[in-house]
Structure formats: C-alpha cells, structure tokens
C-alpha cells in the first residue's frame, strides 16, 4: 500500500480527519439553522 492509498483508506488518520470535517459542517450547520429558526 503506497502513501496515497494509505491516505485514502477509511481507517487512516487522514480519512478520519475529513470525516470529522463533514460531521462538523453538517452537525454545526444544522444546529445553526435550528438556532436561527428558534430565535426568529
């Protein structure tokens, strides 16, 4: 397995990193929208 393949493997730190970013974007984004709707 070369460096690039390892980077793209789901268990690698790199893959986990981008997954965390997706979770942040979707989770925090949803929380943001809910907050706005509640405040309005």
């Amino acid at each position, binding site marked *: 397995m070369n460096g690039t393949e390892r*980077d*793209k493997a789901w268990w690698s730190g*790199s*893959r986990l*990193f*981008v*997954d965390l*970013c*997706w979770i*942040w*974007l979707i989770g*925090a*984004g949803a*929380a*943001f929208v809910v*907050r*706005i709707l509640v405040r309005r």
Partner: protein
Amino acid sequence: MESMAAETAREKRRGRWWRWLAAVGPGIVALAGDNDAGGLLSYAATGQQFGAGFFVPLLVPLCLAAFVTLDMAARVGLATGRGLASLIREHLGPAWAYLAALDLAVENWLTLVTEFAGMGYGLSRFGVPLIIGVPLSCLLVLALVARYPYRTAERLGVGLAAASLLFVPVAIWGWARGGGTVWVAHGGGSLDLFLVAAIGNALAPWMLFFQAQAVAAREHSALYRTRVDLAAGSVVQVIVAAAVVMIGASGFLARDGGGIGRVAGYLFAIGIFDAGLVAALTVSLSTAWAVAETLGHPAHPAARPAEEPVFYTCYAVGVSTAALVMLLPGISATWVSVVVQAASAILMPPLLAGLLRLANDRRVMGSHVNTPLMNAAGGLVLFGFTAAGLLWIIRG
C-alpha cells in the same frame, strides 16, 4: 551622456515601482472584499449595540488571523501556479473536494445576498427603491465582468478599496459629535451572536480560493511582494472596520443618521455601495472559478465569456439568484448581515483544516511548505473559529 544615464536610472527606478505596484492586488482586493457590505453592516450593527470599546481592540487579532490564513493560501498559489479547488481534489481526494465545494457554495450564496442588500441599501439612501436598486446593481456587476477582463475588475477593486477609506473621516466626525458615548454599549442584543459574527467577519471561505487563484494567475508573483500586498490589505481592513464600528456606535443606523448627520450618512451609503460592488465582483468570480474547477473545467481569469461558457454561466446564475433573494419581502439587511457573518465561523473550520493539510504537503508546496511557527499560527486560527462556532451553537 549624463542625461542618458539619468534617463536609465529613472527607468530603473520606475521599473522597481511598477514591480511593487503590480504586486498590489489580490491581498488588498481580498481583504477589502472581506470588508464587504454585509460585513460593514454587521460591524455597524455591532457598534450600535455594544459601542466601540470592546470590538475595536478585537479587530487587531482578527486581522492577524486573516493575514496568517491568506498567507498560506497565497503560498499554495505561488508554489503550484494553480487554484485551490483542483489542488484539493488532486491531493486530498474527492471527499475533501466536495466538502470544500459545498462549503464555498453555501457561504458565497449567503454572502452575495448580503452584497446586494448593501448595494440596494446604499442606493436607497439616495431615494432609489430596492426593487430598482438591486436589479441595477446586479446588471452592473454582470456588465463589468462580461465587458472587462479580470485585471480591470481587480484595479477597480483597488480603487474602491481606497475609496472605502472615506469611512475614516465619517467615523471621526461621529466620534467628535458623540464624544465618549461611542465607546460604551447602547443596546441589549446577544453579545455571543455579535462576538461570533465579528470572528466570522474576519475571514470568509471565498477569500482563500480567491487569494490562491489570483496569486497563481499573476506572472511575476514573489513571496515578499505578496506579503507586502497582504499586509497593506490587512492594515486597510482593520482601519476601515474600526471606523465602521465607531460609525455604528455613533448612531448611524438610526433613521435620521443619529450623531453623524445627513451628509456623513450619504458618504457612508456610498461606501456601503462600493464595498458591496467590490465584494460582489470578487466573491462571484472566486465561486465561479472554484465551481468550474470542481466540474473539471478550470477557467483562466483572462478568458473572455465566449471562450469559457461554463465559467460565465456559473457566474451569471450565482449573481442573479443572489440578487433575486434580496427582492423577497420582509428581509432586514442588517439582520441578514450579522447572521451570515456568524455562519462564516461555522463554515471556515473545515476549509482551514484542508488548507493546513495542503500547506504541510511538501510534494505540493516545495520550499513554500509551512514552518512549525506557521502551523502554530494556523492551528490557533482553526481553534479560534471552531470555538466561536461552538459558542454560537451552545449559547448563540
């Protein structure tokens, strides 16, 4: 002989000045663009609610955060001669590419709405109703980009950035009339919301893409000139932002112009219109560049509309829909502006993380790779934005 030598010396000197002047551009335009209509309305609202005492000092670390981040984006452009979107897809994989594209598209759509809000708002102070002012602004932006090459838009941006310094005398005017009252809080809004909005206001996702692409597209980019450009942009940004917080604190947003009066109110309206125009140009161009790249059709900034149909179609659709949204009834320009800035604090962390990864990849960056100090500074910015996003979710 003597006159020839003098002539040569003069030409050399002029050559040196031209090289410096030619380097002025992306950083100043990006940072002036960040002080966009939405950003300025948000700063003014912040000043109105909380006075200038707390938020003006906060602008200095925020400006440093913008410098550190844009420096990374500039080095990526400098090292590769390519845009950020295609580099992310190639070196970080499709999961990052889609993440970055979604992030950018959401933020830019929201930001463009606020630019048209600001341009319409500026024109409305001169008696042009929103229903005419917003479509006119939209046509102006489309015409400028269709008619002139990117370089012209950039020069216009530099000129308008200089014009935005008009806010400084207006702020001094307001301060002189308001005295010490501009420093203290007047309203009772949510401090958390305005704090997160101020942090989000310092940087926007489009700036990273714009900075990298614009530096990459230049023929004679060099790191030190790019940094001079960025530093100049940062100074202008912080001066203008501080002035606008003070203008807000002196009561401009009140219908009669508050403490700053009618003439100063007109100057402020011109400034808001300018800011909206510069940002609408830069935001929409960077979105179109990134979307075209993500779709596999990278466009050169010098290309004409007929040569790059995908690029200019994305561009026209993005600009027109954003303008249309502002024509919906019941939308407050100030409220939209504050909320969009706060949203930026949530949208930035994933892009900052991706940029940090790219800037640490020696295969991409070569000699421009991040040093430990740059990583510490970049990490601090990432932490700050994430903490601000969490603050909003928990307490906003």
